[in-house]
């Protein structure tokens, strides 16, 4: 019997579960370890800063708790591999159901398209992915399906910590999308969200684009989500994988660190 929602209801999920156990579907971790040494975004010093990830031991099988080990951890909603909700940006501040605790959970499990920009990012650290670039990708891999996630692969996650932020005296230098690409993904393809390997969804010099920080401004203004600091995108096919990215349910949360997984058919 073929697994099929229409003709054979109740078969798709058991088939998926079976394939997972049989190793025919691989689960890939797209998450960086939460580690105090992992870079966070650096804003001009007169603005509030993103808190680094920190841990403090509460007890470790000692006089503070003889049989158990546990710790307090602190961080920002945007530390490490994290999810951006629409209310993160001023353009999305008045949207309904736009915080991590209130956005519909359906968007957390969706198909994912991976746009390979490795060559371009290696040649130009300020590479901007455009609408035309996405159209060329579609010519090769097919149309980006409605409601999916689109991830920009740059292999930036493989860089050393200093080269990852790539800070210079004129700011950070890392690739990202331009406004035409984001507008295309929202208006012409109706994606649920956009993600990158870099520290933000926008390019390092994205503040100098129009509008400034186009990914943040346009995505969140249209109620779409962001993912950043992703890893292991090189293990994903251009199409056909499933992304799982539920953020923590923080009241009025603007985002959250999270574990991002992808399911890939072998």
């Amino acid at each position, binding site marked *: 019997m073929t697994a099929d929602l229409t003709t054979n209801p109740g078969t798709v999920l058991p088939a998926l579960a079976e394939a997972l156990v049989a190793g025919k579907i691989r689960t890939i971790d797209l998450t960086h370890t939460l580690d105090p040494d992992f870079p966070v975004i650096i804003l001009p010093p007169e603005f509030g800063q993103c808190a680094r990830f920190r841990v403090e031991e509460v007890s470790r099988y000692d006089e503070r708790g003889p049989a158990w080990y546990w710790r307090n951890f602190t961080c920002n909603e945007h530390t490490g591999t994290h999810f951006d909700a629409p209310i993160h940006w001023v353009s999305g501040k008045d949207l309904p159901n736009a915080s991590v605790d209130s956005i519909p959970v359906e968007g957390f499990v969706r198909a994912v398209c991976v746009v390979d920009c490795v060559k371009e990012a290696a040649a130009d650290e300020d590479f901007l992915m455009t609408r035309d670039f996405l159209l060329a990708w579609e010519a090769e891999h097919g149309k980006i399906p409605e409601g999916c996630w689109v991830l920009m692969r740059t292999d930036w996650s493989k860089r050393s910590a200093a080269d990852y*932020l790539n800070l210079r005296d004129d700011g950070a230098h890392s690739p990202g999308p331009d406004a035409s690409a984001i507008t295309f993904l929202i208006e012409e393809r109706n994606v649920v969200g956009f993600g990158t390997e870099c520290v933000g969804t926008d390019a390092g010099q994205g503040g100098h684009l129009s509008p400034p920080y186009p990914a943040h401004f346009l995505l969140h203004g249209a109620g779409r989500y962001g993912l950043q600091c992703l890893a292991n995108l090189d293990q994903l096919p251009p199409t056909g994988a499933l992304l799982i990215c539920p953020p923590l349910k923080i009241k009025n949360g603007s985002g959250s660190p999270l574990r991002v997984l992808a399911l890939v058919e072998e």
Partner: protein
Amino acid sequence: MTEAIKRPRRKDPQKRTVLPTLPPTSRSRRALGFTVAAAEGRFVLQKCNDCDAVTYPPREACPKCLSMNLAWRDMPEGGELIAETTIQTSTNVYFRERTPWRVGTVALEAGITVLAHIHGDVAEGGRVRMIARTDKSGQGVLMALPEEETENMADDKQLRELTCDPKHRRVLITDGRTQLGQAMARALSAAGASTVFVGVAETWRPFAGADELAAIPNVEVMGLDVTDTVSVNELASEIGGKVDILINTAEYVRAGGAMDRDGIVTARDEMEVNYFGPLRLIQAFGPGMRFRGADGVNSACAWVNLLSVYALSNWPAYGSTSASQAAAYSLSQCLRGEFHGSGVKVLNALFGPLEEDWRQHLPPPKVTPEGLAKAVVGALQQGLEELTVGAVAEDFLTRWKQDPRVLARELTQPEGA
């Protein structure tokens, strides 16, 4: 003439580390006035307000007129060594381990004769310069130095018991990202420290002076972030057994008080660096230093807190930062108590506005990073525990000593500080 001490050889790993022992500790409450001045490097004696008689050792009443009205007064430092002897044995464990030990009688210009420790380069009948310093017990004692500087004078074994000379010692400077940290590294290297470990947080974030810092002789740049307990503990597990002097240069300074700020994120950052930072360092490095207070030429000897003078009394223009520095200042007293008996001194350097970005809009006079570093090295060489750096801080401290409550009122006036 004093022989120059040599850089110590590596420790014999089979030898048990010598534990700190102490010279006599007990002092009367009255006598602590002498210790307070000694910690600042001032030579004071009691003088009777009724009959002008000068007296030593510290007394409750004037030995001449029995007046209780004795006051500590700065005294001329000159004198003459009229008799000396070298002690060969003692029932006190501390001195027993350190004999032979010179003591002598000095006729002071102040008009009295005192018993004091004697520097090896002073001859009987010779002119001396008196210093008062805290000893390994943290109590004030007198030592007679040669009137004129002699060769290798600081290397005298008895004098070195009173000082925290960086020569041949290993120093940890906790934050090398700032001009202050870099100036401190240069100064300690120049003062003869055998190794200057310099902590640098977030190496993924570039900073000015990084290459120059790494090029300073004897500097070893280490990963260290005082806001990260794991990072502090990791460095202590690596070098905690060979830090003889720790200088905490990490600071977080932002203008603004309590009411004119929005939220507590900045205040938390201030506390993370200015209060929890030293607390983490104490927990990680303190026990090792306390254990190594008598560990030979490069024994652990000093913990240096660099504190804004507004730690003593809040300046509302920098009110929230002042509060975090007050917490650090209070902690330094706890640390002094916990180091008691170890021979490790806590040096508090109180400084006025520093020449750096976050105090850029403040008017001069300001303390330069180089000036603060030089003052700290000088205080270590002299064995001080209290240091005030810069005209603003000196004036502030004078007013604080006169009446802290009047100073507090002044600071809360619109034109305060």
